[in-house]
């Protein structure tokens, strides 16, 4: 009943190998757990980094779009107000044509209005009285104390004269509730979105501002952080409640014709050297500067992204090498530890390939478990991991750059300063890829240890204790 010599036995596999691999893996739980955690982190890094890069790119793109929109809006506004000359005390801080809290502490005398009106070519003069109310805050920075006002609301006194409010951009145009201010209104106020919260009042309510009662006629929908706290009222009411009778904070001067603008500006400049006079051409050049700055910032962001990709690539490579080294050393140790077992298996007729596939299968199994763990860690921890591993995209570089006003950052304002940490959950394809990579790593890392196991001399191995 002996087998024929010439019978060539074809290698056929049953579930046996896999079952044994499972048992061997489950035999050393603590070790497998440690390896799985270590490998899992490498996997997590691998799957979260690519998604982080994609998110960074999206963020940059969004910022670019926001900038372009902002620049276009400003351009349009400048084009629409070519005959406008802006006048303010030169110590005042103004940014763009938007009304803002400024921080202006100096005021002009009302008498200047008639003086300027008398200059030839001047069509209209629109005075504003702007005053912010809030609390003073002190910030310690670079060893020095800076005090600034954190405004609760900004009072904007405007001339409620129908010839002015109908022709020029004085009042907000988007009224979300109630009605806008109109000619001759007094004792009434148009609140900003944030004012309604601050005062806890809506249309028809009475609010008390600096000791005087005002009826709310409407709410405007300006959403920027500066605009949303601005409440509009008659300039004479504003002068009254702020104790600034006969004072104004700035003027908008409109020329009869665009050709008169430069002449008027130089006359005013000569007569009132202490004033800051800005014409459309100056605003344009300012816009140009701003555009240049944005371009620079965008270029920086793009180069940061390039850098990010290089870093990410290096990190992925390191993670891959680390993972395969973990598999490598674990399997090398396992093979050493199980030398006797290898000897027995070979003595009872296991081929080199049987032994090799056994060990590789175990390594792949461990790696696949690690892949699952990695995907779990990666999905949960991707934001943290990416922000730890990837350079942040900082649109304005360091703090205090142009346009950034310390303490005021609002991500809803287009082009607001601040840094973007872009993150996203890993895509399913990335996870699938990670799974494949895990299996590949297991196979790769265990190649040499398994080969060594298969080459073990059964006689030597049997002697091994």
């Amino acid at each position, binding site marked *: 009943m*002996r087998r024929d010599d010439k019978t060539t036995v*074809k290698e056929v596999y049953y579930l046996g190998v896999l079952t044994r691999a499972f048992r061997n893996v489950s035999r050393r739980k603590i070790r497998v757990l440690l390896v799985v955690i270590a490998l899992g982190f490498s996997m997590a890094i691998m799957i979260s980094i690519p998604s982080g890069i994609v998110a960074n790119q999206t963020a940059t793109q969004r910022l670019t779009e926001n900038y372009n929109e902002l620049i276009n809006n400003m351009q349009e506004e400048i084009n629409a107000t070519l005959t406008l000359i802006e006048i303010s005390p030169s110590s005042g801080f103004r940014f763009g044509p938007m009304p803002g809290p400024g921080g202006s502490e100096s005021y002009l005398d009302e008498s200047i209005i008639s003086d300027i009106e008398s200059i030839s070519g001047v069509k209209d003069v629109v005075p504003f009285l702007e005053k912010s109310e809030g609390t003073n805050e002190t910030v310690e920075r670079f060893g020095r104390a800076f005090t600034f006002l954190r405004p609760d609301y900004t009072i904007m006194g405007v001339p409620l004269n129908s010839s002015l409010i109908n022709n020029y951009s004085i009042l907000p145009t988007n009224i979300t509730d109630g009605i806008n201010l109109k000619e001759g209104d007094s004792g009434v106020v148009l609140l900003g979105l944030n004012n309604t919260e601050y005062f806890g009042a809506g249309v028809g309510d009475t609010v008390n501002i600096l000791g005087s009662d005002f009826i709310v006629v409407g709410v405007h929908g300006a959403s920027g952080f500066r605009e949303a706290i601005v409440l509009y009222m008659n300039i004479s009411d504003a002068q009254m409640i702020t104790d600034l009778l006969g004072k104004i904070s700035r003027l908008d001067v409109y020329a009869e014709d665009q050709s008169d603008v430069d002449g008027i500006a130089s006359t005013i400049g000569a007569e009132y050297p202490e004033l800051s006079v800005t014409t459309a051409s100056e605003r344009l050049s300012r816009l140009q500067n701003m555009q240049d700055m944005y371009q620079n910032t965008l270029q920086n962001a793009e180069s940061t992204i390039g850098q990010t990709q290089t870093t990410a690539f290096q990190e992925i490579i390191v993670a891959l090498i680390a993972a395969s080294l973990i598999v490598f050393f674990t399997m090398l140790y396992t093979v050493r530890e199980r030398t006797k077992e290898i000897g027995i298996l070979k003595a*009872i007729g296991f*081929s*080199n390939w049987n032994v090799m596939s056994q060990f590789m299968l175990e390594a792949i199994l461990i790696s696949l478990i690690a892949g699952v763990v990695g995907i779990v860690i990666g999905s949960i921890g991707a934001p943290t991991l990416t922000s730890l591993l990837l350079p942040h995209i900082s649109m304005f570089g360091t703090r205090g750059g142009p346009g950034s006003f310390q303490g005021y950052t609002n991500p809803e304002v287009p082009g607001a300063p601040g840094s973007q940490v872009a993150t996203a959950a890993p895509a399913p394809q990335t996870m699938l890829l990670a799974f494949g990579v895990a299996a590949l790593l297991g196979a790769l890392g265990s190649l040499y240890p398994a080969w060594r196991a298969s080459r073990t001399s059964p006689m030597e191995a049997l002697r091994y204790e």
Partner: protein
Amino acid sequence: MSELVLKTEKLDKVYKLGGRKVRALSDVNLQVKKGDFISIMGPSGSGKTTLLNMLGCLDKPTYGKVILDGVDITKVPEKSLYKIRRHKVGFIFQTFNLMPYLNSIENVELPMEGTKKSKDEKMKRARELLKMVGLSEREEHRPHRLSAGEQQRVAIARALANNPAIVLADEPTGNLDSKTGYEIVRLMGKLSTDQGTTIVVVTHDSHVASHAGRILFLYDGRLKPQERRGTHLMGKLACPNCRKEIQPDDTFCPRCGKKL
């Protein structure tokens, strides 16, 4: 019963130990017929295990031939040797060497892995073998829940799994108490007589040897041609007349002078 299962011709094995050549086996000529139960005795270091490794394709001789079931296994390339080990040889070890993470039936199935047998066939064969060694009740037990004797029975069943041409046992009773050892030897004897299994046992236990049909002595790597000379007493060779210890080389008993 004259068919030769195993034959060695002028088997030499030389080891290099620290630059010095050690001759472990020299000019070993051995013939094993089908159904033989042969015991090879000899003191430690006499080359018993070396010879057994050579017969079981675990080691290659320096010179000479090993013809197993008609094939000169010294000419078989290393990477095909596993087929010989799998199909022609069954190993029984002193320390049983069962896989601790497999139960009895799985341990017996192990050598059948990679053969053409279906899962059911393997299972059936393993059950049959476990029944033969008297362990039908212990199929699902893992080695740590079996006694030493039971473990060795599983190992015997495993050695027989692929119906090998020869079973090689290296000190099969070395780790067993005398009573259990006796049972194991009886089992091997029974396999030899009932099933016609060819068995070569290496031992220095004369009790084990006494069950064998033939006893060979290995001294300093040489196989002594004298077989069945004297009797065995307490593991030593003794004069059948005066029962004093004799050397295998002796032609006459040094005590009583009787021709051996």
